[in-house]
């Protein structure tokens, strides 16, 4: 306490060097703090909010992409066990029995009459399997080949001949 009183009281004159130092010290002013507490708190909150927002936007984006993808590539409807109360065939542009044949044979080649009937009603003619034995190499089928006047593959018909039906080939 004594020391404090001593310091505040106008004491004896200081040495010259210390006096100058005192004057220098008196010119110093406290600078503004580098960290503004309120600003820091606000920025911290905003940054946290941004991080959460990014995650939300990212997850929304992924979900939206998933949604888009699933709309574009929708799974085929499962085959119904009860296809009797049937819906119609196949594509809006070419429904039903106007459908072209698929390149791949459908799965039920050994289907019974009932199965084939219901598949035809549901899917139209695309339910028919690809004809068996078609397009097999010539000469590999030792059946009644001579009965059918199949033209040689290297002898294409002329347009005139083709377009005049009834001409024996």
């Amino acid at each position: 306490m004594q020391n404090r009183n001593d310091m505040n009281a106008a004491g004896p004159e200081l040495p010259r060097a210390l006096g100058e130092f005192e004057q220098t010290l008196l010119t110093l002013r406290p600078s503004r703090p580098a960290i503004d507490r309120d600003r820091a708190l606000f920025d911290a909150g905003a940054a946290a909010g941004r991080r959460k927002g990014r995650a939300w936007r990212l997850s929304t984006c992924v979900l939206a992409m998933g949604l888009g993808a699933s709309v574009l590539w929708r799974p085929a409807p499962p085959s119904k066990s009860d296809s009797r109360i049937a819906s119609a065939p196949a594509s809006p542009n070419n429904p039903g029995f106007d459908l072209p044949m698929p390149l791949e044979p459908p799965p039920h080649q050994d289907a019974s009459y009932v199965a084939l009937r219901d598949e035809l009603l549901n899917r139209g003619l695309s339910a028919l399997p690809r004809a068996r034995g078609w397009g097999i190499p010539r000469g590999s089928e030792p059946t009644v080949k001579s009965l059918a006047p199949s033209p040689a593959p290297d002898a294409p018909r002329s347009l005139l001949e083709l377009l005049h039906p009834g001409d024996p080939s």
Partner: protein
Amino acid sequence: MNRRPVLIVVLIASLSAAATPAAPPGTQRAPEMKTLRVRAAATTRPALQYALMPDARDIEPGDAAALYLMAINAAARSMPNVATQPARGEGAAVWPGDLLDVPLDKLRLKQALDLLGNCAGAIDYLDRAARREHCDLQLNYRKTGMNTQMPYLNDIHYVGQILALRARVQVVSKDYAGAAHTLASGLALARHLQEHAPLVQHLVAIGNASIMLDRVQEWIESDGSPNVYWPLASLPQPLVDPGSVPGVERALVEGSLDLRKAAAGELPAEQRPQFWRRVQTVITIGPFRDQRDQSESSFVGAAIGAAAAYPQARQYLIARGVSAQRVDAMPADAVLGRFYAVKYLELFDETYKAWNLPYPESAAAMRQAQQEIVRERRAFPSNLLQVLLPAVRQARLQYARLDRKVALLRCVEVLRARAAADGAFPADLYAGGDLPVPNDPVTGKPFGYSLEAGVATIDATAPPENPCYHLIYRIELVR
């Protein structure tokens, strides 16, 4: 307000909806639009110069079946070599059906001609077969029942495509006489397939006729094509006659299962196990593929279902005049077998009773029959015999759709004729003019018609269950 929960719910709901399989075909709502660009054309004289069915004078006596089978044999060996050509991609084998899908202006004529050249033998057989009096494909369904084999069925559709391709090429080449001859062969093939045939064969016949009518449409759109109003009007109506189906379908089922005896309670005890085995065989290779499981658990399930149905089966027989004492003396499988057989035969009649009426008159009755089948299946899921009944309204509708196609083409030809006479399409399709305008065979009512800026629109609505069959023709007049 925090919107995140709402967004999450919406997103999850959207994803669930997207993950749900696409709407089954036939329930899609968008109508099918076809735009036809046609030129005016008066009807021809003689009216049937381009008849679309074989001329009676060209019909030869005899059976067409052998010729069709020879056509199949010839065509099968004329197709692209699947052993050396890939099924897809560059250098892929091209089949007639592939060339039917190509737009006419992009059809590669040489490719089509090469293909037809290879099939010339088959085409000759087809032309000759189509001009035979009848076609008996020797189906022995009364004896073979549901095991009846129709090995030609896939092939006959393919040879129909060969004819359709030839008609296409002939239309492109403006060979209308040749095209009419080919179309007559194709439509006669469809008519031959309808003879004493089961429903499956009729469906193939309808498909074959349909691809030929698509060629008629291409004819109508072809520049300078003759008007085929009268050839279309002179086609048989219905084009594929459904008449024989109920009898053949009944014979098919009863060829496999002695339902009459079962329903009358006359099935001897020693035959009942065989009866049930046959029921199981017929059903489990049928549409109930998931019931192929013949494990113990499936039998337990069937037993539980049968036990649940027994009291009603017993009551049903008593109500039908069988004494309670006699019913109680019967083994359980005899009671159930009789009950199931009676129910099946009743439902069969309900299913087919309106079959031979025109579709607009029969639809309501067939709709009711289908609803009754659904109710019965819920009430007696163990009665697998009900599976043998087809979706009758859906089946009958296919015949009407085919006839609608003919009717729509007739309407377009009316427009072409009216344009030839008056210089423009009429404001009212059904008023004026001397050509009879057909009603829509699906609804029994006139087609919707409008004319805007010279473009005619014919609107063929669809049954509520089959919105995808809604068809709209936009017809533009090319001058």
